[in-house]
């Protein structure tokens, strides 16, 4: 614990770049989820992760540029994301009723 504290004290103070790195890593995680997971619901959750990563970047830019516009943008993004989740989940439920599956490999009707 003391060792960890000593290691932390040698790090530079937390600034814009730290938050951006967290945001970039979170975005990559979401991208990975969309690419490798096959459950349509988990893919949708990964999409939410990517949206949240963008929100984090916007809020940190807003903070370090002393401009509130970024936070207003995030407010709108959260609203649109809520609407998008509702519609997307309704589509998934309708799809499940028709095809009885939540696995993307079973939904290949459009595939050539």
């Amino acid at each position, binding site marked *: 614990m003391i060792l960890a504290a000593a290691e932390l004290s040698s790090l530079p103070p937390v600034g814009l770049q730290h938050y951006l790195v967290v945001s970039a890593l979170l975005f990559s995680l979401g991208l990975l989820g969309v690419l490798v997971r096959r459950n349509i*619901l988990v893919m949708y959750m990964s999409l939410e992760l990517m949206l949240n990563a963008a929100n984090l970047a916007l809020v940190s830019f807003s903070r370090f540029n002393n401009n509130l516009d970024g936070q207003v943008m995030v407010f709108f993004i*959260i609203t649109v994301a809520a609407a998008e989740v509702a519609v997307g989940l309704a589509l998934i439920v309708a799809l499940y009723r028709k095809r009885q599956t939540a696995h993307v490999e079973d939904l290949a009707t459009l595939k050539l």
Partner: protein
Amino acid sequence: MPATADLFFYLFAFMTLFCGVMVVVNPFSRNPVTSAVFLVLTILSMSGLFILLHAFFLAAVQVIVYAGAVIVLFLFVIMLLDLKEEERRKIKVVSASIGSLAVLAIAGLFVKSIHETRTASLPLPFVEGTVSKLGAELFTRFLLPFEIVSILLLVAMIGVILLSKKDLK
């Protein structure tokens, strides 16, 4: 000696990334419910980061809208569909590894470009995302987008009701 806020930053950042990993690649369970619960934890630790960035209103909105509404909706749908534990199918190793490699490359590119960028010495941050300040912005300069978003919510609601009707044409 680092400030307490810095320690909290590392705590919340670790929590966010760890729970994010657990959402995407949980080694113990393929159950979507587990992913959803870890997504709640990710959202909560992210609202901690928002508080560290003095975006108090957005932190509250994050908890209320995401943890309170969006994830509950996800859980509702998972229960409604009665999804069983996802059976392990054969993963296509080639495509999965190519995908992971691409994601790694993109992440490396992001982090490197952030690291290399020399930001000008920024002024000391003083902006505070309190309810009154954000509300003043929303109801003056951003009044039109605000109203449009409320119409969007109405349209989404009507769309969802139509989509969930029994005999979908």
